Structures are given as structure tokens and as C-alpha cells.
């Protein structure tokens, strides 16, 4: 829920409750007050009527009813009540108050009843409800409008800064710049964000330097290992020693490949590839297929190509890696004499190969070192590199298995 809607929502309920309570209070207080006033007024009127009678005048007012009677009349109590009287003009029965009192005037007992109309409480309450509802509506509508316009102004720097934060990457060279604001909380937030960005950048740079240094520090000893092992290979060796040496060589190769792969992944995550240009995927595919032709042939693989021209705006270096990783994957996991189908169209690149179903969950396919025992063939990074390359290009990479074929497809 938007902050504005949230505030309006609470604002609405607060207004509704406050206005409801005050509305009821108003109604009851008003009714009480008015009843008292009317009672006083009717009592006064009764007194005045009694005085008229006392002075011997003939009293004949409308809505006044005087009854002369015997002593028993005096026992009746004072009554203040409401009643209904038929209005001949409007042809409706209307509510009236009446006040009735027994008085002894000039020694004779009288019962005097005085009446006055009351505007129906129904109408009062309706009017009050209407007025209060309008107040509530106005408060909410105007409140929200005012809120909206003020917020737009107050929140504007916040929203601009939010956008900037969204587009900000610690790997970019620019510093984070935020729009100034006069709201204290936002000022504080800006300060915190700028601090955070600076800290993130510092840590990122440190990490990057570390990665580079680590890579350098690992690659150089690896180079020494590799060249020294090759030098040992030049010596006459016994079969046993040759086997031991071979294992050591294989391990060095694997270590250097894993190191390279991890470095590449780190760089992909930082999106450090700037050699973006229009690349013909068709050319990249053809070149790699050409290079691998003998490898496919040797394994007796039948390669079917359905390749159209397709240009993508991406790093040419990464496109080479993407295509060669997918092709190597197909080559490694295809069963002997299997079929490999390569399809490139305007929308998708699909590389499929016949092979045994996966021996592990699909969810592990694109994760680093996710293949466990079955993955001894590769360095366990090839497909996660594919995924990462697709991610930075906003492409979708999918895998499915049917008709005993593995399908890897990239949707541009």
C-alpha cells in the first residue's frame, strides 16, 4: 500500500470515529437542551394561561386546552410528553409536545394542557448525519488532496533519490549524488545513504583489489607449478612416477580452470564487461562449430544446424564464452553417436543434445559446482557462467528434458 493511501486510510477511520461520536453527542445534547427549553416554555405558557383565567378572561388559544373539573382533577400529576396530531393542511400526523398541569384558580380546579410542535427528531438526526457525513467527506477529500499536493512536493526529492539509488551501482565510477531536501528525516536519510554508498564502494573496491590480487597470487604459483611439472615430464620417468606426475598435472589444470571460472563469474556479477557491440551470433556459432568439428566427429555426433542470422548487442568476449560453454556442454554430455540440434532464430538460441536424463535436480543445473559426482567432467562453473551472461543481457535461459533430449534455450 502506498504511504499516501495508508495515511488516508487511517485518516478516514479517525475522521469517521470522531465525527460519529461527536455527531451522536451533538444529537443527544441538543435534544436534551431543546426538550428542557420547550418544557420551560410550555410551563411559562401554562402560567400565563392560568393568569388569564384568574383575571376572568375567556381563554381560547389554539393548541391550548382547558378543562374545568372537580377535586379529583387535582390529583393528576404534571405531564410533559409528546403526542401525534393530525395536520389538516399538510395531511400528515406530526409530533407535538404537550404539557399538562392541574391548577386551582379562583377556587376551581382546572386542567391546563399546552402544546407546541416539535420538528421531528428524525429530521434532526438526519440533518445532523448529513452534515457530519459531508464534513467527513470534505475532510477526507480535501485532506487527501492537500496531502497529495504537499506530499508531491515533500516526497519529490525522496522519489528522485530513490530512482538514483535504484540506478546506482557500487561498481560504477560515479559517486552517489542525492537531491537536497529541507525535511529533517530525509536529510538524515540522504546522509546515511551517501555514507552507505561510499562504504559499499570502498568495500567493493577492496574486494575487487583482493580478487585481482588473489588471482595474481594464485596464477603465478600455478604457472610455476605448471612449468616445473612440464620440466619434470622431460626427464625419463618410471611408469609409476609418470602416473603420479600426471595426476599432479591434472589437478593443476583443474585448479587453474576453477580459478579462471570464479574470476570470470566475479567479473560478470560486477558487470565489468564494456566491450559491448553488435555481435553476429551466427558467426560466433559457426566459428565455434568449425573449431569443434573434429571433436563432434570423433564422438560420432550428428550435428543438425538450423541457424539464421541474429545480431545481439552484447560483449563479443562474453558471446564467445556463452556459445562455447553451451556447445562444450552438449559435447560432453551427449551419448556417443547422438544427435545435437542447434537452432538460432530471431527470438531464441536452442542447443539440444541426446543424452541420459539428469541424475540430480534441475534446480542444481545452473548453480556453481552444483553437479556433484556427475560433474567430474567439467569444472562445475560452465552453466552458471551461461546463466550469469544471460542475466546481464536480460535474457532468459531455460532447460527442459523431453524425448531423451536435453534442451538449453536462451530467449532474447
Amino acid at each position, binding site marked *: 500500500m502506498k504511504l499516501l493511501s495508508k495515511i488516508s486510510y487511517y485518516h478516514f477511520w479517525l475522521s469517521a470515529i470522531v465525527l460519529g461520536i461527536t455527531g451522536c453527542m451533538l444529537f443527544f445534547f441538543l435534544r436534551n437542551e431543546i426538550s428542557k427549553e420547550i418544557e420551560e416554555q410550555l410551563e411559562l405558557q401554562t402560567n400565563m394561561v392560568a393568569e388569564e383565567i384568574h383575571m376572568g378572561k375567556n381563554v381560547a388559544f389554539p393548541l391550548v386546552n382547558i378543562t374545568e373539573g372537580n377535586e379529583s382533577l387535582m390529583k393528576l400529576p404534571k405531564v410533559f410528553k409528546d403526542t401525534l396530531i393530525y395536520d389538516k393542511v399538510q395531511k400528515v400526523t406530526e409530533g407535538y409536545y404537550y404539557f399538562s398541569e392541574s391548577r386551582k384558580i379562583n377556587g376551581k380546579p382546572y386542567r391546563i394542557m399546552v402544546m407546541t410542535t416539535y420538528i421531528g427528531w428524525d429530521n434532526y438526526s438526519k440533518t445532523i448525519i448529513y452534515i457530519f457525513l459531508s464534513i467527513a467527506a470534505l475532510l477526507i477529500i480535501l485532506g487527501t488532496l492537500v496531502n497529495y499536493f504537499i506530499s508531491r512536493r515533500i516526497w519529490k526529492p525522496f522519489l528522485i533519490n530513490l530512482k538514483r539509488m535504484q540506478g546506482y551501482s557500487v561498481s560504477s565510477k560515479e559517486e552517489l549524488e542525492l537531491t537536497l531536501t529541507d525535511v529533517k528525516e530525509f536529510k538524515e536519510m540522504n546522509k546515511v545513504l551517501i555514507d552507505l554508498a561510499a562504504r559499499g564502494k570502498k568495500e567493493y573496491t577492496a574486494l575487487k583489489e583482493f580478487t585481482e590480487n588473489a*588471482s595474481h597470487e594464485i*596464477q603465478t604459483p600455478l*604457472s610455476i607449478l*605448471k*612449468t616445473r611439472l612440464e620440466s619434470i615430464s622431460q626427464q625419463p620417468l618410471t611408469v609409476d612416477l609418470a602416473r603420479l606426475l600426471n595426476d599432479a598435472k591434472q589437478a593443476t589444470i583443474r585448479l587453474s580452470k576453477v580459478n579462471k571460472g570464479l574470476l570470470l563469474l566475479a567479473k560478470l556479477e560486477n558487470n565489468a564487461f564494456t*566491450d559491448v557491440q553488435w555481435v553476429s551470433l551466427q558467426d560466433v556459432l559457426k566459428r565455434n562449430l568449425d573449431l569443434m568439428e573434429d571433436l563432434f566427429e570423433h564422438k560420432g555426433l550428428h550435428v543438425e544446424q538450423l541457424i539464421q542470422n541474429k545480431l545481439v548487442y552484447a560483449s563479443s568476449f562474453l558471446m564467445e564464452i556463452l556459445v562455447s560453454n553451451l556447445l562444450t556442454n552438449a*559435447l560432453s554430455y551427449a551419448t556417443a553417436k547422438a544427435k545435437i540440434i542447434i537452432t538460432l532464430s530471431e527470438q531464441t538460441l536452442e542447443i539440444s543434445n541426446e543424452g541420459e536424463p539428469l541424475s540430480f535436480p534441475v534446480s542444481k543445473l545452473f548453480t556453481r559446482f552444483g553437479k556433484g559426482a556427475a560433474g567430474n567432467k567439467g569444472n562445475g562453473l560452465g552453466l552458471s557462467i551461461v546463466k550469469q551472461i544471460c542475466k546481464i543481457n536480460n535474457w532468459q535461459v531455460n532447460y527442459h528434458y523431453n524425448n531423451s533430449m536435453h534442451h538449453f534455450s536462451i530467449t532474447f
Partner: protein
Amino acid sequence: MKVLFVEDEPVLLEEMETYFNSHDCICEQAVTFGQAEQKLRDYMYDVVVLDITLPDGNGIDLIEDIRKSHLETGILILSAKDSLQDKLNGLNLGADDYLTKPFYLEELNARVNAIYRRKTLKGAEQIMFDDFTMHPASKSFFFKGNEVSLTRKEYDMLIYFVINKNRVVSKASIVEHLWGDHFDQSDNFDTVYVHMKNLRKKLCNISGKDYIKTVYGMGYKFTY
């Protein structure tokens, strides 16, 4: 061929020097940026093998100097960083090739030779062994003047062998040379074997001599 190795790691330096010396190269070494600057000012080299990370400077900065004074000198960048940016910068500044550590000495030798052929010999060089002649520029191969047909991979393999003659070349190194380094080697050893077998048979049929020796468990050795 006169080669300058600019590298701060003594073991690598020693290995490179020993190997290149055994292939009739005159080798010199520089272990610091300053030393390299000095040597490049005073002498001419056919090829400079340049490590980027030096204790007192960035090897990349040497490229421009070399280019200014000696246009003919070939430059091969040797880097531990495998950074695309370094590679692009280096090649833009005029380096001829780029090799990432860890590397095979045979590969370095093949690349340095390729640069040398291209730059100094302007591609006119012939590689000869016994009665065979290779023309790397046109990728043609002759025995006593008659052209011998080889597949492209066989040709690449043969050059690699000849350039690294008398050396046990591991299968992994051949895989990397033929298909690049993002391939998994063990899978392709069989293919290497097939190419080697075909090549050996072709050479043997023509000349009656077996040039390629299998060194059990290690690789192959080409001798003439």
C-alpha cells in the same frame, strides 16, 4: 631470434630462459620496470615477453615506448590478471598477442615464433625439417617440393610439434593449443590421439621415418 623476458618471478624466468635457449634463442631478462626500460633503450629485440604486474610499474606502460623506438619488435603480454580490459588496452597500444598465466612454455614458444614470423620475417619464413617444408603464412606443406595435404588441425599440430621439437608435449597442452582453453581436456585426449595418429601415419608414409614418439602417460615428442 632475440627475446627479452620482462618478468619478476625468478622461477618462471629461469624456465623460460632455459627452454628458449634450448631452441636457439638469445634470451635476456629484466626483473623490474626500470631494468626493462633500460634494456629496451640500449638493445634491439625481436620479441619482448612482457609481464604486466611488475614491482615498480605497469608493463602496459612499456608498450608505447617500445612502439615508438622499434616498430618491428614483437610484443607478447603475459598477464596473471586475465582481465579483458588489460588485454584490450594492451592490444590497442600495439601489443601483438596476449597470454594468460598459467601457460604452457610450448604455447608461449609457439606464439613467440608466430609473432617473430609475422613481424620480422614478414610471413616469408619456411619451417624446414629433413625434406619437409612448411609455409605457415599459406598453411601449405611440402615434401621434396610436392604438396602434402593435411587437415587444418593436423597442420596446427605439426607446427606446434616442430616449433617445440625434442620436447615432451603434453596432451593437455595440445588440447589448449588446438581448441582454446575453455575446453575440458580429458574429453578431447582421444581426439588428440586420432589427429596425432593420422599425422604420424602421413609423415611416415611419405618419408618412411617416424617423427612422433609417444611418451607413455606424458604426451608426444617430435624429433628430427
